[in-house]
């Protein structure tokens, strides 16, 4: 080949190396080495993040100034509404506790064991979206565990658990798909990512802008009723059997520093294809 005149042997050696590592990598033999590497380079990663994150945050804020001001006004109104609802719910909770005590009912969700983990880095490619967290198998994390935000919004799934850290595939990742449904409705579909945004596809039922989408629990990969996002746009006409629905995440991944891992939730069927 003309273009490989001087690099033939080197290119051949690299392809052989790629095949060798491809085989070795699939046996899991590199995982301890990767764990040591990540532990050793952790401080360097932290230093790089700490240096550039404020710059990126400032640029983001400048770009979003108008939107942030509007959002702030809306949040103030929403905050007041929610405070009133909390007051009403606290009254309800007290009444329910009294009734449970009277009827000798014990409550508690066994799937709610949560482990707080710090976000070490975020890999945001055009097609991939994943986090690395500072907890691993030594802390009880296993592949398939569901990861949520501190506020309870679904973030993703642990796809690789090393001894002291884990990789989390976010719901925005192009390889992610989550069975979802409209909160308070029977309309359901599949939430898919494309690397940076989410869409709600194969929707059966009515969906409107502003609807909240939660996990349906179908398939057993995620527990039900975890908030995923809000409908921001519905594309397609009334005759369209499967309208295209875009979702806004309700959590800002770029500024998330702490996440919760539901360690007690074991997916019914968990097949990794990473």
């Amino acid at each position: 080949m003309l273009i490989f005149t001087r690099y033939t042997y080197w290119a051949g050696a690299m392809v052989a190396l790629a095949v060798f590592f491809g085989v070795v990598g699939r046996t899991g033999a590199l995982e301890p080495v990767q764990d040591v590497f990540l532990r050793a380079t952790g401080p360097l990663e932290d230093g790089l993040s700490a240096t550039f994150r404020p710059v990126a945050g400032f640029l983001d804020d400048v770009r979003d100034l108008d939107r942030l001001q509007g959002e702030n006004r809306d949040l103030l109104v929403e905050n007041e509404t929610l405070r009133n609802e909390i007051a009403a719910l606290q009254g309800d909770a007290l009444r329910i506790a009294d009734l449970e005590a009277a009827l000798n009912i014990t409550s508690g969700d066994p799937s709610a064991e949560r482990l707080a983990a710090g976000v070490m880095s975020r890999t945001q490619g055009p097609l991939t979206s994943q986090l690395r967290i500072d907890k691993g198998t030594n802390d009880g994390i296993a592949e398939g565990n569901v990861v949520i935000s501190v506020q309870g919004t679904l973030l993703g799934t642990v796809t690789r658990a090393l001894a002291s850290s884990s990789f989390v595939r976010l719901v925005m990742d192009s390889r992610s798909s989550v069975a979802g449904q409209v909160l308070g409705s029977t309309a359901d579909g599949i939430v898919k990512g494309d690397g940076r945004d989410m869409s709600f596809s194969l929707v059966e039922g009515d969906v409107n802008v502003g609807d909240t989408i939660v996990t349906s629990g179908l398939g057993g990969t995620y527990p039900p009723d975890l908030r995923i996002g809000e409908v921001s746009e519905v594309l397609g006409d009334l005759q369209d059997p499967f309208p295209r629905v875009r979702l806004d995440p309700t959590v800002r991944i770029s500024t998330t520093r702490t996440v919760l891992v539901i360690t007690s939730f074991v997916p019914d069927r968990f097949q990794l294809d990473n």
Partner: protein
Amino acid sequence: MRAALIAFVLLLTALAQVTVAPLFPVSGAVVELPLIVLLLLAVFVGPTAVMAGLPVLALCLSFAANIEFEWLLLAYLPILPIASWIERPRALPLNRYAQTLSIALAVGIWARALLATVAMASGADLAIVFVVTDVILPGMLLDGALLSFAYLACRSVGWEARSMELQRAGF
């Protein structure tokens, strides 16, 4: 000493690709820092640095980003063969900067297309139009802009651009 310095730069590049590059996306695309650093190494240090450094960088990035080593290695592998072809007499009548930029664009397309294909093979539901308009094109612009800036910076501190063709051994 020089080898250790290059290894450290490659490690830093891999970590920056994971921690810094995602902070500055343009239309969802992220700059390919490994590609730019490998090209600058090829131009200002020599092709042997890339021959030794490519697997080191691919391994570091594979560990840091949890991407399979083999795909990263294959993604950046064409840098030197393409450079060798472009530098041939009568291949492309370009100056060194334009040659370097051409290599970056060609390898950028190859690397992103390869990684997109891998993502699709592992379950990503992506349209080819989306990959072209939202991944490859903005990525090429980002790579071109950053490479131009870095190339000018290196030239302005007095570094001479070298041939990327592998020299014959001699006495």
